[in-house]
């Protein structure tokens, strides 16, 4: 990802490459899907065995390992589907309601 992607309104014909190709591979990683979420996963580290089942089953690749080896959700991408909480072997993930800001 080199340059930020322009929004549809800003995008002019000079910005479009020949054949409407997109040469900036994986630039959708700039796109926030976290604001779709109504519930958020929270890990209970006293019961987490760091197995990574939440990581392998996340459809949004939003579960990452932190420095301590625990897994946590990247809330920029997490859509709050709840698969991690459902599949967790020790049931240490809980879905918490997102509060109004």
């Amino acid at each position, binding site marked *: 990802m080199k340059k930020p992607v322009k929004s549809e309104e800003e995008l002019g014909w000079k910005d479009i490459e020949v054949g409407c190709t997109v040469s900036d591979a994986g630039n959708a990683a700039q796109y926030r899907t976290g604001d779709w979420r109504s519930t958020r996963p929270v890990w209970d580290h006293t019961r987490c065995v760091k197995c990574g089942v939440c990581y392998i089953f996340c459809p949004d690749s939003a579960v990452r390992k932190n420095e301590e080896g625990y897994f946590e959700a990247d809330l920029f991408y997490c*859509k709050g589907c709840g698969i991690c909480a459902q599949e967790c072997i020790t049931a240490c993930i809980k879905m918490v309601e997102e509060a109004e800001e």
Partner: protein
Amino acid sequence: MESLNVYASRLVTKREHFAPGHRACQGCAEALAVRLVAKALGQNVVVASATGCMEIISTPFPFTNWRVPWIHVAFENAAAVATGAEGAYRALVRKGALPEKGTVFLGMGGDGGTSDIGLQALSGAFERGHRFIYVCYDNEAYMNTGVQRSSGTPFGASTTTSPAGKLKAGQVTWKKNMPEIAAAHGIPYVATACSSYPFDLMKKVEKAAKAGGPAYIHILSVCPTGWGLPSEKAIWIGRLAVETGVFPLYEVEQGRYRITVDVPAQRPVGDYLKPQGRFRHLTPEIVEQIQTRVTAEWEKLRAKTAL
């Protein structure tokens, strides 16, 4: 990789070739399947994708989720374009214009793009014997346009074009057996997989990449939106599909059948049908009819593995 080990997830590569930030629905197991396939194939791959959910959600212009070369093609010719790219690559390698780097060519489409619209291009590609993989992400209807029936829709499922009502209980035909059609071409590798069994899926994709000829993988991808399920149940219902025998996981290597996830004691199909909104209207008689069919299909498959 031991598929039963709880810690197996930690051995999987951390690199994501299918970037996050895609616009699939919450709990989309099809996006998960794409992510796992991309992980298994790595960086050295060229993808041709038919129209469908996975094209819509991963590449709304000017974004792309793919970190590998990716071509969008029409509904009917994903296999033709993948094999065309493969043919061009082999020709350039033969002439010395490109180094041989063992690039993998992947064609992909949904159940509509594979078993309805793209079938003749796919059949032709299998027959010509190109070294490529075709992956079908089967969510059992045309989901991206709002749940219309396809030939991959199972018997009894209610969709917007096969609605359940007083006269008919949803879809009136049985699901087209696409893996068997692929196997009938006599290609080196055919497999069925499900995103609820990620290590089994990735192992099959790696095998397909090394098959040395056309390979076909049929992945059951649960669609919580179209199937009438809460988003967190997507993995759970995929596992039930395998445990009830509705979607057996097997592979056909050089004509030899092998069941990869064996289910010695099958659960009744009702366990799989009941939680889903699209099967809500089914009467016990129809469930019994489906059970008979599932058992018969399973026996047929068992007989083939014994050969």
